[in-house]
């Protein structure tokens, strides 16, 4: 290995393996790197295919875990102390406002990024199996849907913890929508809140869910999600490479065993995906993948830190059950539901349509169900797997994008165009100023 002597070279600290063997060894021998394959395709590393959204959400989750643990040392989950401890964080704890701001903005970003990741996977048909044995991408897609739901729940449970008006009423709106579900609605609300009103028992339940139970669920699902990605032969764009090459290439399939210590049954994923022309299409994971990973992590941290710094986390008045803020809104990622509830509440003749049931429960439940069965009903040709905007999948993409667009439009309307009394305001109209005590 070539030794670098100049100080500048040392500061830049780039490690270039001298041989393929050294590069492969680094992956196998290093605990942190062991979950990567020794070699990855250039296509998997590209920006334009995956936008690295899954990685970004994992990095955000890491930021959330670290900041969250710090916050756990400072936050007191009691009705009397919670609000006060957040005020302390904001004004008295060293860097407290920043840690809280970073935690909050990372949570919002994670909801957005996980959502975008799902859109990416759908649009590239990456939830489908191709030719390789042992693939189960539809299952991984379902795990992904569960991860999205867990992310939403994590954010939702964290919303209550500051115990201010924003928290209290967002959870009121959210749980009231949920309680409209037939039969199970009320019992679920009761179980979640530990009573009929949002009080100490609700706070401690949300706290335990937020700090222990849901992160654990995410961690387990995430581990399985990552393991499946390896089992399924990496990103779907690799399948696409293999399929498109197969038609032209006649070279014999090279057998390599990059499997993890040989524990997994059968042969390794690389053998199964039968990637031809490996030498031209792949690069060593170390340092190509690791460097890019570091870079994505750095950009994510920088973006989150900058946003945390520019967008201060709000803290409204202390929670007050007898004063409803106007307007009372659910967290932004549920505002499309709240908007749907409004839009589906109407009267036809003598019948009143219950918007909370239709818009707040039935439609989202159907949406989740639709997401779950999507990979099983998608019958477009497998050549579309791992490609963007495949001509044969235009119809699928269009329907999916219309649904996404509808959700986005409803979210924007709910967030920016619903003022006091949930009245509709155009962006150029100013909301009436709400009265104050003095």
């Amino acid at each position, binding site marked *: 290995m070539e030794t670098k002597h100049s100080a500048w070279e040392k500061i830049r600290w780039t490690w270039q393996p001298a041989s393929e063997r050294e590069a492969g060894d680094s992956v196998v021998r290093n605990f942190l790197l062991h979950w990567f394959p020794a070699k990855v395709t250039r296509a998997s590393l590209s920006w334009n295919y995956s936008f690295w959204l899954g990685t970004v959400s994992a990095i955000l989750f890491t930021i959330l875990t670290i900041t969250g643990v710090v916050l756990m040392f400072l936050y007191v989950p009691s009705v*009397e102390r919670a609000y006060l401890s957040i005020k302390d964080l904001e004004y008295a704890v060293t860097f407290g406002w920043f840690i809280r701001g970073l935690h909050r903005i990372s949570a919002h970003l994670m909801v957005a990024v996980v959502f975008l990741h799902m859109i990416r996977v759908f649009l590239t048909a990456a939830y489908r199996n191709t030719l390789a044995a042992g693939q189960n991408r539809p299952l991984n897609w379902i795990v992904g849907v569960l991860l999205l739901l867990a992310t939403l729940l994590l954010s939702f449970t964290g919303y209550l913890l500051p115990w201010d008006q924003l928290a209290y009423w967002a959870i009121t709106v959210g749980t009231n929508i949920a309680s409209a579900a037939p039969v199970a609605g009320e019992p679920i609300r009761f179980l979640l809140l530990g009573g009929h009103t949002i009080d100490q028992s609700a706070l401690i339940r949300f706290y335990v869910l937020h700090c222990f139970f849901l992160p654990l669920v995410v961690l387990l699902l995430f581990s399985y999600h990552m393991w499946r990605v390896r089992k399924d032969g990496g990103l779907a764009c690799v399948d696409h490479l293999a399929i498109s090459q197969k038609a032209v290439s006649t070279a014999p399939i090279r057998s390599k065993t990059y499997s993890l210590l040989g524990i997994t049954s059968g042969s390794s994923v690389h053998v199964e995906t039968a990637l031809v022309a490996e030498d031209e299409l792949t690069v060593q994971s170390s340092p190509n993948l690791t*460097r890019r990973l570091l870079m994505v992590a750095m950009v994510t941290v920088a973006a989150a830190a*900058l946003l945390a*710094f520019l967008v201060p986390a709000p*803290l409204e008045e202390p929670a007050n059950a007898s004063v409803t803020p106007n307007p009372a809104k659910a967290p932004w990622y549920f505002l499309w539901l709240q908007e749907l509830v409004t839009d589906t509440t109407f009267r036809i003749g003598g019948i009143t349509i219950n918007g909370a049931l239709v818009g707040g429960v039935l439609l989202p439940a159907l949406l989740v169900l639709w997401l779950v069965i999507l990979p099983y009903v998608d019958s477009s040709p497998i050549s579309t797997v791992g490609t963007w905007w495949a001509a044969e999948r235009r119809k699928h993409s269009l329907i999916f994008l219309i649904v996404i667009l509808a959700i986005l439009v409803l979210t924007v309307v709910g967030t920016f165009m619903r003022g006091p009394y949930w009245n509709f305001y155009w962006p150029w109209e100013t909301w009436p100023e709400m*009265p104050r005590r003095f």
Partner: protein
Amino acid sequence: MYRKDLIWLYASGIVVLLVTGFLIWSFLEPEWSEYQTDFRDLVMEKFGPQRATQVSGGLKQIWVRELGTVDRCVTCHQGIEWIGLDNAPNPFKTHTGGILQKHPVAQFGCTPCHGGQGYATDTETAHGFVEFWDEPLLGKRLSELYLVRTRSAMLQMNCNACHRYERQTKGADFINRAKDLVQEKGCRACHTINGRGGVIGPDLTEVGGKSPEQYDYSRISGVQTAFAWHVAHFQDPKSLVPETVMPNFNFSSSDAQALSLLVLSWKKRQLPTRYVPGVQLADRPTPEEAEKERQMMTGEGAFFVRKGCFICHSISTLGIESAAKIGPDLAVAVTDVQSRFGRTLEDFLNNPTGTMSVVLSTQIQLTADERKEALDKLKIAYQKTLEQKPKK
């Protein structure tokens, strides 16, 4: 491909460095540290370097656990408890008047009286003129906004948080005037206040806690605040609520302001009893017990009630009945003492032993005259016992 990556890597690295740098800078140079430096300079100038070294730096707070308040005001307002800074510029001034003697800072903090946001550590948010904080500093800025002539008038609203059950409070003239008006105009004819009054109008006991959004501002011009609403309403109820039966008392604007501050002070609060003048927690005797004690106080044995002997001893022939009856009936003390201790009653009273030595040296200390009185009375009691016996 990777050259571009490096650019991103360095660019994001610079962003992280800048944010970190700013964080450290804002930690090292908070707004309040300037005030602390200025205060130290002021002390140096006025009292010399010796005193200046006594000025401590850093974030300061007064935490009053009983009131649930944390006031960091003293981080900048460092001079409030100093003597001799009466003419210093704010925020370094000594606190006005002698009011801190009765309201020590350690027990009351700052915001329970002055309003504002005690948690905050920068001027604007601490003074509470920010979104999501409904209790701004009750000072010059608000007085000027509402054209209240007396400087301390707004502040008096918070005096009444604790002093609400007092008819008049020293120093709170504005609120006192409002309380006089409540009596004079007979507000209780229609309104219940503190549990007493009519039901024609709404109960005003906790009206100060009403949300500002619960008032109808459609007929009011100018700022939409609960305070402005009350002032306008006191001056002409019908102009705001056409269907009201509340008479127009033609209050002057000053009186209307005073009354508005009074009603806004009527909030539901959780205050420890010792903070509320005129309120006492007591284990009161039942009416029967009180009546019995009153009767015993007027009878022959009044002396023994006054001195507290009756807590343990009955003196049956003098009509004194102890509730506890811990000690023997003193009606026969003359012979009883003799038989128990082998001493005369007089001797025993002058030199008691056992329990009585403790009682008579601590809780019930008798003068020589009182001892004589006790002895005489007990002799009478014994006499009566003897007189009663043959009748049986």
